[in-house]
Every structure is written in structure tokens, then in C-alpha cells.
């Protein structure tokens, strides 16, 4: 596998400009001859589909949901970063770039991240022009807040629904192009296969989720904007339908998969309450601004929190990290919560939760002030748990949230498969080993509105505009493969349900490849996953028929892919014998039990190549840092 990131020459700040000038253009008159498939309609997919259509290309857009407006981008709460420096507090493009590289623990490309910071400002301009109702100051200008421990206020927001508002903006732009006849939207379609002709991406096979029909769609390029794969852990903050299938199918057809083990675990989620839980709900990180995290000092202390005296509580983050205390970064907070629970100090019936206590803040600022600040979050918490955080401490626990890994892409966002692009969370992205808060929306929209529309010409200009025939043998072959897989799932007629298998896979991944990983556990997972996969294909029961709306069948296909993909995550986690960002190898820690990064051996992107009936091959893209010297993170 050849990995050429195609980073343009010149000084960092001029690379993107140079590249845009050097990039090939397709003449406006010829663009309508090119057809582009965009899979996914979240921030990246909708913004790319709309913008490419505005440029004159013919677009087919596919989504799982009944309408493109429901993609999981809609659930992003916090905000979107941009280097506007409206607050005059010392922010700049370089500072946003610097923070993102450092936050990613030096495992992302400098050139990409700088470009992201440059583009961030134009995203805000675009969203405002679309009528996105961002929060404003009394003077009518845009409001900002600081987010996730950033020292500048660069986050733009629309109440706690920034993702929703940005997505509806992109959805509006998409609908406008549908009205103009430039985009055709295919809702309730799931991509089951990628079709390649002569080694280049030329189409997809989809299943119509209402009728079960398989459909072939041909194009001159295929764009995957299908989101992250956090649901391989079964329980996560992702939507129920979020899955790895599209990018996994592409990987099996030749696209390299980068850093699959980089999975962000968010520290403040509502804990698991029981076996039948389907979803973990995120509580905004801002709660840690005023909440104090603690556990009982004595393991197994099951008294209600209000009966545990001050002297018998361990405010472990304040004790261990006096400088940052409750505001340590996501990965540190998550790891410490797990550590306390492993010591038997976890609270609630499950022992898998820690307290987040607002009593001190209420006493200091008054109940009214705290309610005003966090009222809507407290309501959400109470709706789910039935308990009021004004009266008793919240209980929280970390949960899988975002996946930094994804398909490897070059500077043009093209994968190792010519003609196949990956955008947003589906690519291995600009977040390195850890994503900063309010950066996911920025990246998805940068990819879709500005980067892909400027770079796709480099490929299309050298590609014949002759229509691709969906009746070709390659399509038939891919369709047969998809049909066979579906038929196989329906004919096993075993005893265990899809959800049952999914839960067990999730437990294996969480226990052995979760917040902290070690060689022994990972090797154990390497034996457990294939065994579970084996059982899946012999003992699964899928009710209903193929040619019908069959939600069990949909889930079975996704879990079948997760069962293959999980092994790659574990393989990657084993190969990376260092601790960086979200990835903590217990063997690689300092004497103080903190993460130890190994730049000498692991300053690279790990790119996996699929091989039939053989272990995947590891390819490396070396990372070098010219502008920001890799430093060690310390929060003591």
C-alpha cells in the first residue's frame, strides 16, 4: 500500500492557498457530465453534496434515516470552534492550530490541522448567512464561550443544540439543490457494497430499507461521510444506527484504515443502569466547571451520598491534579474514574459510577445561580434518572463518544482507493489521538463545504466523463455478494438475537480495549472476538423476511461487520506500544501512573491494509512536527 499524503510545499500558512492554485479544475460546462455519490447526510455529507451541486456536479445522496435531517451530527451539543478572535483574547489561526495539534497528543498532520484552523472562520460566515441562530451578545454580535478547558473563548453555539442548528443549515442547502434538480436524495438506503472498476471507486450497492430491494448506483466518484464507529462498543453516546459498515466495506475493497484504536471516551455520561440499556447519554462537559468529582474513601461504602461525611470522601481529581483539579482533559478524567471504580470505590448499585457534586457550588453561588447555569442539563438528568442534582450529587461514568480513527485520506481527502473519498468522522481526521471539544463540527463542515469541493477536481479532471454503466459485471458481482450475505443472515435460524451478540461484543471491547488497555487483555480479546463471530454465524436468529422493512436484519448486517472490525481495533491497540491521547497502554506509564508517549517509535499514523484470509498488514505514515515541538502533557 502506497501512502502519499500529498502535503503541498511552501510555508505552513501558504500550503492550502498554493494547493488550491495548483489543483486541477473541471470546466463549468463539463461538471454536469460527472456524477458523484455521497453516502451520509450529516454535517460532512450534506455540506459536501450541497456544495458540489452548487458547483454543477450531479449528486446522488444516500442516508439511512427517513430524511437527511436526522443524521447523528444533530446530537452535538456544545459548539463549534473558530479562530475569529472576536473576544480579543489572544486567539488566532495559529493558536487554534497549536491547541488542536497538542490536544491530539501529536498524532495528527500539521498541514491538515493548520488548514482546518484557517477554514474555521469561513464556516461561521457560511452558517450565519444560512440563518443559523447562533447565540448573540446584546450588541447583536456573535457570542462565544470557552469550552473544554481552552484558554480562549472561541466556541460559537446555539443553546445546547449547535449540531442540530448547523445540520439544519446544511440540510437546507441540500434541499435547495434538490429543488433545483441537482441532487437526488435516497433516504432509507443502506450501503452494502462499494463497487470498484479497474481499482477505482465507481459506485455502490444499496439496500432499500423499506422494500429490501438491492439497488446499483454508478458514479465517477464516491464520497463516504458515514460517521464514526463507536457502536462497536454497543453502548455509546452514538445514535442507534451509527455503524462501521460503509467504511468497513470500503476497507475490504482496498481502502487503508487508519488508527482504528483511537476512540474517545467522554468522562461525563449518565451511568449504565441495567442490562437492557440501549444508549448512554452525554452530559455536557461544562458541568465540571462547578461540579466536584468524588468517591467514598472506603471501598464498598454503600451509604447514600448525603450520609457520607466530608472527611470520608475522596475528591480524587483535586487531590491528584491540584493545578487542573476537576477540569483535567477528557482522557485523564475518564481514566481516573475507572481507576477509582476498579478499587471498589464506585457508587450506585453497579459500582460503576462516581459522584459529581454541586453542593459546594450551590453554597458558594446560591441555588438560583447554579440552576440558571445548568438548569436544562439538570432537567435532562432528572428526566432520565428521576433524581434532582440540586438535592443529591449526580452520578456519572465515562462512555464511548467519538472515534478519531477512520479511513486514511491524503491532503485531498482521497483514500488509498482512487475515486473514493472519506469526510468527517469517517476519515482518520485531524484530531490525532484525542479530539478537543467543539472540533468535530468544525472538521465535518470544513471537509464538506470547503476542502472536498476544492480538491475533487484533481481526480475528476483526469477521469473520463463517459457515464458509468450500473449494469456492468462488477456491479452484478457486488450485488450478488450483498444478496448472499443477507440471505445467509436470514437462514441461520439459531437461538440468539442480534442485540444479544452486540451486547456481548460490546462487553469484550469495553473490558479489554476500553479506557485502559494492556497486552494481556488485548490478547484475550483476540481470542474472544473470533469465537463470538463464529457463534454469530451459527447461532443467530433474524426474524422476518429479506424483501421487507426488517429492522432486525439491518442490525444483523451491521453487527456482522462490527464483529470483523473489532479485531482490527484490538490489533491496532496491540501494535501501538505507547500511551497517547485516548490510548492508554498500562505497560506504558510513568512512575506516577501517567501516560507515557513514545515519539521515537510511534510518531506515525498506523494504516491497516486488508488481506484476504491473512492478518492485515500495517503500513506507516511518519509524522513530523516543524511548527509545534512535541511536548509532554502535565496537569499536576
Amino acid at each position: 500500500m502506497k501512502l502519499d499524503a500529498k502535503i503541498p510545499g511552501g510555508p505552513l500558512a501558504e500550503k492550502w492557498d498554493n494547493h488550491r492554485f495548483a489543483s486541477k479544475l473541471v470546466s463549468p460546462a463539463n461538471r454536469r457530465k460527472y456524477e458523484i455519490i455521497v453516502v451520509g447526510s450529516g454535517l460532512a455529507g450534506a455540506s459536501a453534496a450541497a456544495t458540489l451541486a452548487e458547483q454543477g456536479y450531479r449528486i446522488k445522496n444516500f442516508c439511512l434515516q427517513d430524511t437527511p435531517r436526522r443524521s447523528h451530527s444533530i446530537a452535538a451539543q456544545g459548539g463549534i470552534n473558530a479562530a475569529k478572535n472576536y473576544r480579543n483574547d489572544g486567539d488566532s489561526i495559529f493558536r487554534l492550530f497549536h491547541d488542536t495539534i497538542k490536544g491530539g497528543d501529536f498524532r495528527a498532520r500539521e498541514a491538515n490541522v493548520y488548514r482546518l484552523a484557517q477554514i474555521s472562520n469561513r464556516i461561521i460566515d457560511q452558517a450565519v448567512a444560512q440563518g443559523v441562530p447562533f447565540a448573540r451578545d446584546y450588541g447583536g454580535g456573535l457570542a462565544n464561550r470557552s469550552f473544554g478547558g481552552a484558554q480562549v473563548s472561541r466556541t460559537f453555539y446555539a443553546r445546547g443544540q449547535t449540531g442540530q442548528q448547523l445540520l439544519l443549515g446544511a440540510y437546507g442547502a441540500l434541499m435547495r439543490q434538490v429543488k433545483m434538480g441537482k441532487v437526488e436524495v435516497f433516504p432509507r438506503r443502506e450501503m452494502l457494497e462499494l463497487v470498484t472498476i479497474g481499482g477505482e471507486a465507481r459506485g455502490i450497492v444499496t439496500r432499500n430499507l423499506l422494500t429490501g430491494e438491492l439497488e446499483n448506483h454508478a458514479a465517477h466518484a464516491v464520497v463516504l461521510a458515514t460517521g464514526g464507529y463507536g457502536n462497536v462498543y454497543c453502548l455509546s453516546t452514538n445514535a442507534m444506527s451509527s455503524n462501521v459498515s460503509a467504511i468497513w466495506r470500503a476497507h475490504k475493497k482496498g481502502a487503508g484504515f487508519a488508527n482504528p484504536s483511537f476512540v474517545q471516551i467522554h468522562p461525563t455520561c449518565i451511568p449504565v443502569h441495567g442490562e437492557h440499556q440501549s444508549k448512554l447519554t452525554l452530559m455536557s462537559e461544562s458541568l465540571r466547571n462547578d461540579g466536584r468529582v468524588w468517591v467514598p474513601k472506603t471501598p464498598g461504602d454503600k451509604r447514600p451520598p448525603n450520609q457520607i461525611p466530608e472527611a470520608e470522601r475522596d475528591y480524587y481529581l483535586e487531590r491528584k491534579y491540584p493545578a487542573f483539579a476537576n477540569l483535567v482533559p477528557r482522557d485523564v478524567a475518564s481514566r481516573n474514574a475507572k481507576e477509582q471504580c476498579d478499587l471498589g470505590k464506585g457508587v450506585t448499585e453497579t459500582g460503576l459510577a462516581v459522584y459529581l457534586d454541586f453542593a459546594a457550588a450551590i453554597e458558594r453561588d446560591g441555588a438560583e445561580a447554579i440552576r440558571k447555569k445548568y438548569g436544562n442539563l439538570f432537567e435532562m438528568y432528572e428526566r432520565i434518572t428521576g433524581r434532582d442534582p440540586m438535592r443529591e450529587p449526580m452520578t456519572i461514568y465515562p462512555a464511548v463518544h467519538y472515534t478519531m480513527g477512520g479511513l486514511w485520506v491524503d491532503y485531498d481527502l482521497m483514500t488509498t482507493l482512487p475515486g473514493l473519498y472519506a469526510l468527517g468522522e469517517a476519515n482518520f481526521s485531524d484530531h490525532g489521538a484525542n479530539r478537543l471539544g467543539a472540533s468535530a463540527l468544525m472538521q465535518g463542515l470544513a471537509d464538506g463545504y470547503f476542502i472536498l469541493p476544492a480538491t475533487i477536481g484533481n481526480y475528476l479532471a483526469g477521469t473520463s466523463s463517459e457515464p458509468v454503466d450500473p449494469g456492468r459485471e462488477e456491479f452484478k458481482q457486488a450485488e450478488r455478494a450483498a444478496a448472499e450475505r443477507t440471505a445467509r443472515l436470514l437462514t441461520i435460524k439459531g437461538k440468539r438475537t442480534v442485540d444479544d451478540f452486540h451486547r456481548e461484543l460490546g462487553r469484550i471491547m469495553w473490558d479489554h480495549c476500553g479506557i485502559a488497555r494492556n497486552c494481556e487483555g488485548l490478547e484475550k480479546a483476540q481470542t474472544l472476538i473470533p469465537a463470538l463471530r463464529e457463534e454469530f454465524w451459527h447461532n443467530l436468529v433474524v426474524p422476518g423476511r429479506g424483501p421487507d422493512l426488517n429492522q432486525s436484519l439491518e442490525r444483523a448486517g451491521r453487527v456482522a461487520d462490527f464483529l470483523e472490525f473489532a479485531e482490527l481495533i484490538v490489533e491496532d491497540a496491540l501494535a501501538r506500544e505507547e500511551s497517547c491521547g485516548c490510548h492508554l497502554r498500562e505497560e506504558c506509564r510513568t512512575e506516577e501512573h501517567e501516560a507515557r508517549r513514545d515519539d521515537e517509535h510511534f510518531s506515525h499514523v498506523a494504516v491497516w491494509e486488508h488481506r484476504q484470509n491473512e492478518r492485515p498488514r500495517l503500513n506507516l505514515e511518519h509524522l513530523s512536527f516543524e511548527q509545534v515541538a512535541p511536548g509532554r502533557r502535565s496537569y499536576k
Partner: protein
Amino acid sequence: MKINLTLKIRRQSSPDEKGQFRTYPSGPISTDISFLEMLDILNERLTREGEEPVAFDHDCREGICGTCGAVVNGIPHGPAKKTTLCQLHMRHFREGDTLVIEPFRARAFKLEKDLVVDRSAFDRIIREGGYVSVNTGSAPEANTIPVPQNIAEQAMNGAECIGCGACVAACPNASAMLFVGAKISQLALLPQGGPERSRRALAMVRKMDELGFGNCGNERECEAACPKGISIRNIARMNREFLRAAICSDEE
């Protein structure tokens, strides 16, 4: 705590078949789980017993995507105020309760299967102008046009709509005016939506009528059922926008 419920669920295997209610005992259900998790448990059991599970739409399960929804004992999204079905927890019900569960019904929402309906009519309305016509790259600097804070807040009140369709299901006339009013209001309030204000109001209202949605009869059922608490002020604003455009503008 565990409770036992009787579930009467409307089943229909395809758009053309006749629907019927089927009754299932819930079995012991923890009051800590959500309504959809209760349906998950029922479906797991049906699967093991060889019966086809109940098809229902859902996705984010945190009340923002707008995918889920069913009528529970006559109320879209069930009895809790400002709560989507996925956020409704079983502690709102008591031991022995009977829950009648039906899909959102309206002439413009074709029933697909069990509790799944086709709400693509909403997309068709938005297509007519539920946006600002601005190409990527042509936007002015974001702070060029100041927007008073209270105006931005009011626009956001409309923009919060999740497009679930509960307003239509709740309305005796199956009117979509809360949904359409929310979008028209958002864009009419903001200066960015100004240039297309008249065209938008005329086109979206026309499409809404054409798709078979009814008219507002001031019952306010939509507002009561809306999981985001969207106010019927937005319907008043829509009517005003429509009249203004129909009488004062030169748009067709």
C-alpha cells in the same frame, strides 16, 4: 422497581394491509428504563418466540433527531410534557396500566409498517424554501449584520423544531402549521432570511396545502404535544407572513 403493563400495539405488516391491535403483556419492566427500551425488550422476546418484532423508528435516543414517535394512550410521544418518546421513562406509568400504542396518523403520513410512517412530506415542504439561498463561499463576514439578541432567541425558539410530526398527529385537522410556522418564523425573524421572505411564505404554505395537511383550528393540541415546546405564536407569525406576501408583495 418493576411494574407489569398490558401493551396494546397496532400492527400492520405493509402499507396496503389492514391493521389490527395485538395485546402483549410487558412482563416485569424496570421503571428506570425508557419507553423504547421497553419496546426493545418486547421485541427480543417476540424474536425468541418466533413472532415478528414491532417495527418502530428511532435513532439518537436523546430527544433531538426527531425520528421516534408514537401515540401512547391518545397522546403523541406519551403523557410527559416536552418529552420525546425515547426520553419518556417508565416511571411515568403504574403497575397494571394498559398502554395503547399507535403510529402517528395523518393523510399526508403514509403508514409503512407497524409504528413506522412516511414523513417525507416535511422534506417536500422544506424544499420549497425552508432555507436561505446562499452558495458556499459567498457569505459575508459573520458579524457584518448585527442581530438583536432577543430576535436571535425568538428565531432559535422556532429553529428548535425536530421535525418529528407530533404536531400533525395531535391535530384534529392533521395540520402541519406548527412545523411550517416554526421554519418560516425562524427565517422571517433573521435579517438573512429577509430577501426571500415573501416567496418562502407563499411557496411553503402552498405546498403544505397541496400535500393534504389540514388547516389550524386553534385547538392548540400541537403546542401541547410538541416535545420542544414550540409555541403557536409561530403559526400566527406564519399567517401574518403569508398574508403580507399575498397582499403586499409582487411574488406569485
